[in-house]
């Protein structure tokens, strides 16, 4: 036994140092950190693009960029934020948390884990490099609808290849998550005893495996349409441009839940911890997550109500979409019931989680409105939609990620962040996120289409407010970087159980946890 431990330590000491440590690492914590840092960098790159967009939209008329470049910015902003910022952040959290929450030493497939991360920097370098091409980057929107995307310049094959790489990375990551969760849980941890974050990630991983290949298929057909003379999507060759949209959204809707289910898991972990009360309705949380995931495969065409579907199709997709409100509602009610008669305190992670519940629910409300086909004919492709999905993605997914970082950072590093700076970061972020995105509901309803570089003067006031909010939001995130820096240069002082109300195996480990998290599997009663 002691010889065994000695071996493990030896291995630890022989790990290369410096850059090679990070390139060759197979350790779940190192890889988790790589994912999280990568995501932070992408968040700033994507955010910088958003600020170019908002600066141009500050007032009517074109002042800064030409329309073609504006379209490249909206396209790249979405691709970077979805595939570069939010998804890698969740995978980073999965890497850090899954082994230490289920009582495992590491992820099941450590080498695969290394590879699935190291694909990303190459994929994004390739994607971003297209901005420097003479013909510019992709400009047809992240949805890449043909025939417009087929008109693109030389960037197109590079964009498609980088999306393929991102898909491979996601699928490998998902395989690893499933293998780890299904095989490496501590003895006694049955499926229905797993932490809820583990449940949401398990379901997300299955969604990834089911959805990413569909996207790969769609963009491969685009590639052959452009370069190999096929006409899957070109009407003049007998193809069907609408078929692309069906295939794309068959991926795209599950993708939406890939971006939000882990966030549900995080909020379901943080709310009980700071309410000092067990999560209300654990079983129904699991069933609700699973039903949302299943429903996500039969609602895709609500993204394309205006393409001229048969009436029966429109009714079907309207009703199934409305149905999603039921399990989502159950989740929100369960969170509120968890807080009810608790003993709440309001540390930074809790503040972000509470704001998540309110603001995500507002995004859910506009989602329910968008589900109603007759009204969607008006909402579709307007800023109302932009407001909706930013409410579920920014104060939704991104707030959950930030909450998770504050919640587990002391565990990861053994160092406590500054609570007062954390709260300042919370208030600045929450105020500015609403100043940015709330007015977009108004201009959208009043008739402002999305993806336009310039607009009629009647939309000027709310756009100016949104732009001010966006710069405030962006600058507030510099404070977040400072808080991280400030925390990391401190000494290790955090307790093993950082939060008195927190439950779970990760809090039984030291802060920071040992290199091979659980060398001996704990027993779960």
């Amino acid at each position, binding site marked *: 036994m002691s010889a065994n431990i000695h071996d493990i330590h030896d291995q630890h000491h022989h790990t290369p140092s410096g850059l090679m440590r990070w390139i060759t690492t197979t350790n779940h914590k190192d890889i988790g950190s790589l994912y999280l840092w990568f995501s932070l960098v992408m968040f700033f790159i994507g955010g910088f693009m958003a600020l170019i967009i908002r600066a141009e939209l500050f007032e009517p008329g074109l002042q800064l960029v030409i329309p073609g470049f504006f*379209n490249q910015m909206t396209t790249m902003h979405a691709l970077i934020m979805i595939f570069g910022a939010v998804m890698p952040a969740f995978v980073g959290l999965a890497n850090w948390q899954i082994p230490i929450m289920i009582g495992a030493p590491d992820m099941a497939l450590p080498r695969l884990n290394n590879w699935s991360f190291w694909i990303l920097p190459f994929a994004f370098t390739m994607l971003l490099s297209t901005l420097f091409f003479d013909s510019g980057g992709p400009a047809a929107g992240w949805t890449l609808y043909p025939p417009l995307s087929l008109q693109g310049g030389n960037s197109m094959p590079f964009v498609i290849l980088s999306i393929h790489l991102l898909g491979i990375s996601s699928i490998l990551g998902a395989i690893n998550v499933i293998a780890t969760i299904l095989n490496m849980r501590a003895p006694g941890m049955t499926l229905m005893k797993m932490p809820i974050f583990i449940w949401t990630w398990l379901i997300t991983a299955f969604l990834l495996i089911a959805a990413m290949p569909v996207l790969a298929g769609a963009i491969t057909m685009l590639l052959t349409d452009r370069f190999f003379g096929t006409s899957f999507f070109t009407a003049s060759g007998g193809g069907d441009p609408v078929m692309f949209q069906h295939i794309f959204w068959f991926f795209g809707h599950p993708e939406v839940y890939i971006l939000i289910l882990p966030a549900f898991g995080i909020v379901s972990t943080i709310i009980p911890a700071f309410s000092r009360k067990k999560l209300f309705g654990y079983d129904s949380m699991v069933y609700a997550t699973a039903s949302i995931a299943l429903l996500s495969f039969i609602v895709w065409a609500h993204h394309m109500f205006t393409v001229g579907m048969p009436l029966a199709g429109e009714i079907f997709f309207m009703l199934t979409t409305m149905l999603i409100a039921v399990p989502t509602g159950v989740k929100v009610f369960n969170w509120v019931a968890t807080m009810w008669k608790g003993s709440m305190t309001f540390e930074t992670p809790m503040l972000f989680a509470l704001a998540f519940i309110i603001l995500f629910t507002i995004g859910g409300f506009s989602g329910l409105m968008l589900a109603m086909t007759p009204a969607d004919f008006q909402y579709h492709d307007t800023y109302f939609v932009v407001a909706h999905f930013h409410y579920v993605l920014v104060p939704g997914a991104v707030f959950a990620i930030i909450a998770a970082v504050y919640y587990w950072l002391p565990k990861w590093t053994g160092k406590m962040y500054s609570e007062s700076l954390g709260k300042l970061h919370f208030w600045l972020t929450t105020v500015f996120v609403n100043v940015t995105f709330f007015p977009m509901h108004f201009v959208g309803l009043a008739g402002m289409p999305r993806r336009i570089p310039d607009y009629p003067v009647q939309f000027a006031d709310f756009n100016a407010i949104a732009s001010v909010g966006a710069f405030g939001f962006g600058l507030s995130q510099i404070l977040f970087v400072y808080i991280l820096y400030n925390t990391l240069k401190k000494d290790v002082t955090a307790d093993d159980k950082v939060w008195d109300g927190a439950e779970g195996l990760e809090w039984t480990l030291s802060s920071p946890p040992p290199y091979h998290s659980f060398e001996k599997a704990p027993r779960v009663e």
Partner: protein
Amino acid sequence: MKNYLYMLALALPAEIMADWEVNMPRGVTPTSEIAYDIHMLMFWITVVIGILVFGVMIYSIIYHRKSVGHQPAKFHESTKVEIIWTVIPFLILVVCAVPATKALIMMEDTSDAGITLKVTGYQWMWEYEYLEDGVNFFSKIDNESNRARRLNSGQNVNNVDNYLRNVDNVVVLPTDTKVRVLLTASDVIHAWWVPELGGKKDAIPGYVNELWINIKKPGVYRGACAELCGKDHGFMPIVVRAVPKMEYEKWVTLQKDNRVAETKGN
């Protein structure tokens, strides 16, 4: 919380809000009115649910906090409550689904139209063909807007008449007539949308989509392309002038005379 602001905004006197339009226009067609009604129905339902849920949450935040000495309760499930808050939202949705489905059936019924207008989207203009009356023309952004919208044009767009919502050739349609609009495109996907005339529909190469409008009030209604169609997507406005039937007939005759004159001139 946010819903309250929203309500406040809606309740403000119209004149204050004139330049701060916050809601969907009710519009002047049966389809725009039904879209508005469904929109407002859903809006108020979400406001009520929001007040209830956020109300309970805020109450809990105020009274069930550690700093006021509240001790945590032990309960963590209740099958009864969980069933109730699964079933009630479901019933609310059924109540919403009925009028929405009816509205949809009405909106998609393009039969018995008086005239047919065929709209073709191009990068970046529209072509209009009046199938029964044999009139057709192209319509693109007016020159004044088109000059002012250039990067650093030096022009103050606030002084441009209907900036980005004005065209060279206006679509003229009769009021109180069911107009069937056929939509297609020649290059990429566009979407034809005039908010006050109801919802949009995509104009797709290789497809002919349909929608119908029946304008109840004479006037000029402005809209734009709503589906990203390339670099000048933001610059392909739509202007519809609705006039009484008599006047429409005169307009058609005039268009035909002009056409004859043009042909002769050539």
